[in-house]
């Protein structure tokens, strides 16, 4: 302390006679220079640190890749013994280092995503042998949602869950965070193959369109998924659950759901009516035709168009007069065009006889019907 005050005194000596504002300015300059210097040092230190970290990561990645490819995946006869020996080597390399362990998890998942059969099984076994499952499950309890989502992705890629672990996912299924919720639902679908859709019973939050796309992708690409009767969710108070289940009913061709779909034609929400009508058409539900025609007049344009399309798909021939009258009488171009295409979908339809003399039709209607019946044009 004493020596510091001596140094300050020596430094002050030449300026002792200077006015006070000069002294203050000098102190300001010195402090600024010190701050600039410290900032540069901090930048250099951080750069060195990140360079050394990325070098370490690269080195670790190379070691892990080499170990996995050369000593595990490359051998035709790799088995439990090879897994154990690779696990021992990797454990020695990692020594509990979090970054190293994450590299191993990432590489195992990457290879598992690309290689099936024996290689895939060996990779899953190694994941379990290295207790990496515990690390992934630990992430589910993290406060940060992106770490939780990362953990969910890891456990669904590497099938290693028990019923006890599934309970860890339950609270995340209803998270308010969209990204986390969708990851949890995808994980639940993949890991709960006996009752994969149970979460729909309690789904209060909307299943957004992109969210539904991701779930459908998981559903279509997961083997041995036990498919339930989706019509049981058509009464759900959550509209997006209903639209999601309608898609699945069509995809899995669940014809038993047709009566419930018909009852949805009276649903107050337009979106539900649209989806129900489209589904009935795709399921060729002949028993729905009468109801579709009955409700036609009171619907908005979008539903009307879908009803005409559905009648065209079902094409039983019972409503050809209805379609003809829409084609001939309605003023709306989209209705005329859709009705024309629906008519031409009927196997017995002949444009030359359906309207008496085709030349009696207006130029617009004649053009439309020629367009709809042109086999080279896909309508």
């Amino acid at each position: 302390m004493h020596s510091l005050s001596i140094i300050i005194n020596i430094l002050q000596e030449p300026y002792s006679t200077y006015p006070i504002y000069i002294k203050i300015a000098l102190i300001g300059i010195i402090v600024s220079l010190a701050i600039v210097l410290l900032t540069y040092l901090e930048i250099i230190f951080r750069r060195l640190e990140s360079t050394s970290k990325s070098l370490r990561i690269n080195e670790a990645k190379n070691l892990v890749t080499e170990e996995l490819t050369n000593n595990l995946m490359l051998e035709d006869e790799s088995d439990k013994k090879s897994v154990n020996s690779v696990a021992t080597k990797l454990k020695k390399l990692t020594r509990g280092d979090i970054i190293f362990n994450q590299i191993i998890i990432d590489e195992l998942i990457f290879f598992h995503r690309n290689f099936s059969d024996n290689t895939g099984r060996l990779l899953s076994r190694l994941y379990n042998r290295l207790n990496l499952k515990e690390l992934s499950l630990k992430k589910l309890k993290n406060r940060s949602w992106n770490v939780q989502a990362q953990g969910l992705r890891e456990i669904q890629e590497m099938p290693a869950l028990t019923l006890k672990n599934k309970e860890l996912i339950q609270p995340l299924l209803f998270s308010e965070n969209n990204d986390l919720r969708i990851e949890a639902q995808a994980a639940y679908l993949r890991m709960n193959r006996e009752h994969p859709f149970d979460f729909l019973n309690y789904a209060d939050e909307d299943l957004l369109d992109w969210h539904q796309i991701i779930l459908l992708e998981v559903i279509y690409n997961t083997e041995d998924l036990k498919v339930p009767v989706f019509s049981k969710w058509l009464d759900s108070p959550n509209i997006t659950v209903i639209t999601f289940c309608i898609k699945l009913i069509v995809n899995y061709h669940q014809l038993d759901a047709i009566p419930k779909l018909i009852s949805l034609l009276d649903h107050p929400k337009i979106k539900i009516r649209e989806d129900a009508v489209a589904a009935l058409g795709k399921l060729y539900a002949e028993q729905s035709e009468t109801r579709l025609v009955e409700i036609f007049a009171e619907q908005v344009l979008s539903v009307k168009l879908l009803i005409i399309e559905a009648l065209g798909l079902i094409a039983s021939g019972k409503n050809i007069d209805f379609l003809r009258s829409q084609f001939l009488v309605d003023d709306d171009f989209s209705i005329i065009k859709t009705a024309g295409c629906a008519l031409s979908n009927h196997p017995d339809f002949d444009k030359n006889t359906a309207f008496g003399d085709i030349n009696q039709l207006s130029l617009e209607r004649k053009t439309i019907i020629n367009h709809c019946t042109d086999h080279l044009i896909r309508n």
Partner: protein
Amino acid sequence: MKTKILLVENEELILRFLKLRLEKENYEVNIARDGKEAIQQISNTQYSLIISELTLPFVSGFELISKIRTESNNTDTPILILSALSSENTIVDALSIGANEFLKKPFAINVLLTKIKLLLGGHDLLQAV
């Protein structure tokens, strides 16, 4: 002389592993990490088999197949597509523009090796004729 295979894959880990695995099977493997690099390779060298991903940087797998079939020394070389893009349309499109086989990711190594042998066998037979 070893059978020459061109392996076109943008994922470094898969590229490295498959190269090692195919070399173990006694094939000579050249690699390309994107479509452009692959086009350069096929213009200079005659290959017995080309294995390619569809999603490639710069030049897509589809463009690469077309180039191979129309503007290279490898117009008759069998092409095996190895891709995660595996919708029916993608497979049909790839096969209709000139690919000989399609293997979906994730795939089993043994299946890949068998397909390679079949394609090379057929190719050798064709050359013999």
